[in-house]
């Protein structure tokens, strides 16, 4: 009942506030009139009656306000009044308002974007069942202390772990593999990225099939019937989302596979690229599945409730040590290492993303400081007004609230604009940052929206509180006492501004230095000589299905046939074949021994990356010959036991001697190869250190995967279609993939570096701009404040140069202090980002000098304008200014 009544009043007060206000006046007037009438009846004169009535009644305006203050929505009315006042103040200086809003929009927008990405990639739990209980288990060689020391697991080790240890609830293994996918009826062939997973992988992760079923244990056996599970993406894209695909066959590498299940849409592990899954064992032979030295699988384990992951790993480690002892001559690790599954997925972007988030946070802080600084300047001009209002009884809280409204308005407007910007920016980043894992999980949701709104209010508080408090401080009355012809301006306010400015400069220096280092290391990556041709080179990959190409002769026939056809194409300068081009990534590595250098004892056996090439490859891509010779057409078929090694291999294992004619024995296959040549080093991954490499003749016919490398006279991409046509002419059912120029390969592997370096540089430049605006603003204000003083100085004979110096020093003081703090901070930051710098020292003197120089120059320019204006002051004019 009473609730209803209260609600009625609340509605009345909300919607009929104006009418109610008028009625309140009427009500009070009625009372007064009644009293006056009574007084008149008592025989008072008209004037006397009015005064007596007012005396008895009290001050009507005060009482009206008091009555109104009891009304509901009073807080809103107050807020609206502040808002109106704030809008009006901002409208009076649209330049300032616009600058501040844009500054905040950039800051809030960039921070929101980065937060969205960081949350989706680093913070959001994986969509699996109890993802916190999932860890990855790797083999660990005790001698391997560079990097993370995590080695892929051999199938034999995995099987033994799973059978003989009980610390984990279960373990599953997978490795990637690609397939040529065709339908039953020779439909358009395509190369798809697939993976082989043990039968229990999906149940271990907690991913029930959307359609059909997962693998059965008996299907995960070497030689079992071929079955395949499709991802939702492939199911929709290639098979039109038709559920009748379950139970039908598709062809992978021309072998028929029975489709048994379709994964749910959300399942994109280990990355969205993987399109289909086959049973783990189906990718091995009865021999290879027992191997303990074929490091190629990833192992996921689920921790038992109540058992720590470390304890479970210890048990596996103990078993692994036994395996190591049992296979003493082979590279079998002594121990294992674990890491959470999420860390495993994001390891390459964790540091860059964290650095970016910090950078964008710095930029936002600088933006806040800047707006704060500008507000301090404006509050100084309103000092008289505030003093008067304070003296008349305006409560300090009211005055602070009023000032805060202004910064709130700026931040809300900026925030709205910023969030709109960030929507676009996030989308753009998620689609263009190729190396970003979990990019499909990036989207704006409630948490992000909440974060953005929170950010708006925090920035408003940060930007507004300091100026508001300082301008309404205890000195409120001194504002009244200050003579109108004040000479020095308010010293304390200038100090506050200088402190803000120093902080701004210091942060900017930190950002500039970090950006400089990252950019230098990125440039280093991009422009460093790869050791081979990168301009005008086209690459294109194909994999010959082993069913048709079942003899080495057939394989060679295709390899040589396609090379001959491509070399005849107009515009082709040279062409060659390689299993994986430079920068194309990891392919394989082999542990080897050197018969001429029998090692007496080793912990971690020597290993090298391997590549297979045709005789023309090195000259086609311009990898220089250092010693010996390249392959010839003679090294083919059974006559294949020759190898060309890279310079690093030669330097490391044959220091001070000629490796030509020496031998290398591959442990896994127990084959010995004669070294016939030494060639220059090329990286296997542009962003990783170079490794020793062995090249084998592709004409052995053992390698069915190959990449055609074509050096062209003109634009290499123009040759993409002609080369593909040649492939189709030889084998119409053979798909090609990874049609890329060398430049694209390099760009792809440096995508993360490119993004983080360019983004941080952009943030740093914006911050520099902000700092310059701040500096200019402060100095202009100081000059205006000191105009009379400067006038007196000039009148008393000060030289223009002296005035110039005076003002310049005033502005450059905080800059220099900020610079020193910033350099110290920059050195600390540089050490923190050490792990993502390539070929660049954290304390690169050049970068520090250039960046601080840039800042100093910018600061000097920002200071010069107000200083010049000060030095041109006419004394008479200055003294006449009120």
């Amino acid at each position, binding site marked *: 009942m009473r609730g209803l009544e209260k609600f009625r009043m609340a509605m009345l007060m909300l919607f009929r506030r104006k009418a109610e206000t008028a009625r309140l006046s009427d009500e*009070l007037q009625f*009372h007064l009139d009644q009293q006056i009438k009574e007084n008149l009846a008592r025989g008072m004169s008209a004037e006397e009656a009015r005064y007596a009535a007012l005396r*008895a*009644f009290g001050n009507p305006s005060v009482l009206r306000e008091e009555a109104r203050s009891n009304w509901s929505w009073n807080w809103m009315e107050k807020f609206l009044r502040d808002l109106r006042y704030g809008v009006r103040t901002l409208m009076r200086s649209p330049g300032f308002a616009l600058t501040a809003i844009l500054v905040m929009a950039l800051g809030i927008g960039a921070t929101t974007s980065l937060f969205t990405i960081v949350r989706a990639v680093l913070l959001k739990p994986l969509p699996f069942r109890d993802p916190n209980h999932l860890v990855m288990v790797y083999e660990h060689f005790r001698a391997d202390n560079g990097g993370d020391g995590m080695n892929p697991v051999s199938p034999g080790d995995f099987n033994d772990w799973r059978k003989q240890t009980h610390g984990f609830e279960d373990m599953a293994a997978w490795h990637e593999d690609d397939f040529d996918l065709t339908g039953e009826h020779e439909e358009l062939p395509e190369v798809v990225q697939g993976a082989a997973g043990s039968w229990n992988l999906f149940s271990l992760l907690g991913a029930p099939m959307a359609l059909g079923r997962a693998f059965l244990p008996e299907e995960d056996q070497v030689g079992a019937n071929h079955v395949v599970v499709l991802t939702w993406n492939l199911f929709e894209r290639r098979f039109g989302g038709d559920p009748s695909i379950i139970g039908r066959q598709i062809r992978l590498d021309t072998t028929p596979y029975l489709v048994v299940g379709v994964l749910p849409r959300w399942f994109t592990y280990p990355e969205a690229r993987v399109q289909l899954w086959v049973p783990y064992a189906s990718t091995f032979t009865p021999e290879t599945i027992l191997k303990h030295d074929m490091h190629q699988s990833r192992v996921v384990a689920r921790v038992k409730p109540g058992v720590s992951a470390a304890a479970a790993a210890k048990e596996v480690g103990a078993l692994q040590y036994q395996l190591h002892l049992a296979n003493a001559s082979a590279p079998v690790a002594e121990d294992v290492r674990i890491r959470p599954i999420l860390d495993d997925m994001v390891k390459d972007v964790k540091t860059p993303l964290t650095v970016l988030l910090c950078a964008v946070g710095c930029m936002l802080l600088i933006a806040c400081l800047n707006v704060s600084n500008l507000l301090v300047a404006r509050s100084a001009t309103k000092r008289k007004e505030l003093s008067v209002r304070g003296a008349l009884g305006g409560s300090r809280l009211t005055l602070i609230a009023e000032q805060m409204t202004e910064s709130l308005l700026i931040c809300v407007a900026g925030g709205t604009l910023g969030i709109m910007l960030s929507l676009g920016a996030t989308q753009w980043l998620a689609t263009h940052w190729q190396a970003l894992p979990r990019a499909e999980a990036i989207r704006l949701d409630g948490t992000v929206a909440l974060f953005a709104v929170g950010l708006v209010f925090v920035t408003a508080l940060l930007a507004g509180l300091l100026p508001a408090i300082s301008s309404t401080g205890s000195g409120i009355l001194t504002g009244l006492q200050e003579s109108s012809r004040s000479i020095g301006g308010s010293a304390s306010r200038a100090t506050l501004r200088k402190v803000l400015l120093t902080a701004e400069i210091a942060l900017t220096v930190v950002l500039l230095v970090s950006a400089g280092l990252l950019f230098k290391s990125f440039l280093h990556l991009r422009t460093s000589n790869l050791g081979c041709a990168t301009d005008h080179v086209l690459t294109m990959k194909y994999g010959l299905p082993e069913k048709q190409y079942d003899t080495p002769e057939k394989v060679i026939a295709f390899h040589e046939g396609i090379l001959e056809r491509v070399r005849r194409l107009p515009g082709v300068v040279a062409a060659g074949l390689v299993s994986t081009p430079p920068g194309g990534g990891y392919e394989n590595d082999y542990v080897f021994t050197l018969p001429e250098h029998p090692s007496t004892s080793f912990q971690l056996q020597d290993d090298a990356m391997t590549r297979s090439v045709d005789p023309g490859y090195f000259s086609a891509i311009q990898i220089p010959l250092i010693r010996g010779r390249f392959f010839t057409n003679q090294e083919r078929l059974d006559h294949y036991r020759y190898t060309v090694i890279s310079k690093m291999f030669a330097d490391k294992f044959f220091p001070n001697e000629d490796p030509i004619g020496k031998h290398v024995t591959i442990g896994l296959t127990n084959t010995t190869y004669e070294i016939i040549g030494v060639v220059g080093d090329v990286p296997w991954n542009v962003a990783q250190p170079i490794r020793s490499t062995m090249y084998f003749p592709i004409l052995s016919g053992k390698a069915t995967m190959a990449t055609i490398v074509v050096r062209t006279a003109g634009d290499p991409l123009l040759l993409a279609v002609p080369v593909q046509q040649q492939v189709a002419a030889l084998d119409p059912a053979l798909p090609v993939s990874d049609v890329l120029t060398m430049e694209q390969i390099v760009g792809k592997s440096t995508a993360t570096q490119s993004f983080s370096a360019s983004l941080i540089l952009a943030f740093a430049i914006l911050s520099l701009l902000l700092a310059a605006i701040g500096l200019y603003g402060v100095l202009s204000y100081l000059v205006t404040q000191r105009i009379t003083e400067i006038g007196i100085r000039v009148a008393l004979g000060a030289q223009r140069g002296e005035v110039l110096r005076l003002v310049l020093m005033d502005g450059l003081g905080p800059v220099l202090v900020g610079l020193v703090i910033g350099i110290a901070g920059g050195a600390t930051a540089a050490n923190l980002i050490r792990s993502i710098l390539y070929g660049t020292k954290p304390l690169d003197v050049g970068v520090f000098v250039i960046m601080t120089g840039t800042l100093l120059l910018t600061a000097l320019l920002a200071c010069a304008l107000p200083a010049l204006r000060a030095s041109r002051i006419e004394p008479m004019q200055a003294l006449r200014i009120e």
Partner: protein
Amino acid sequence: MGKPSDLVQGTLDLLILKTISFEPQHGWAIAKRIQQISNEVLQVQQGSLYPALHRLEQQGWVRGKWAESESGRQAKFYSLTAAGRAQMEREKENWSRLSAAINLVVEGA
């Protein structure tokens, strides 16, 4: 007559509620009536009645309604709501307890 005693803090609400419990009254009449009934001892500063009336109205204890007054002019008449009547009883009880307690102390001394 000496200076009218100040209203005991917090009793104004009770006085107002009691005054309008018989029939709806406008502010002027409420002030007059409090003065008359209490034999001119309790003198409300007339104006301070209005903030109190508006507070009570916001809280849903009284309800204001514009109607013609005895002089023919429009005036705002306040009447007690059901909740207001309950509130009046509560305040009356409070007051009795308080005055009894004060009496005890004063008489006992």
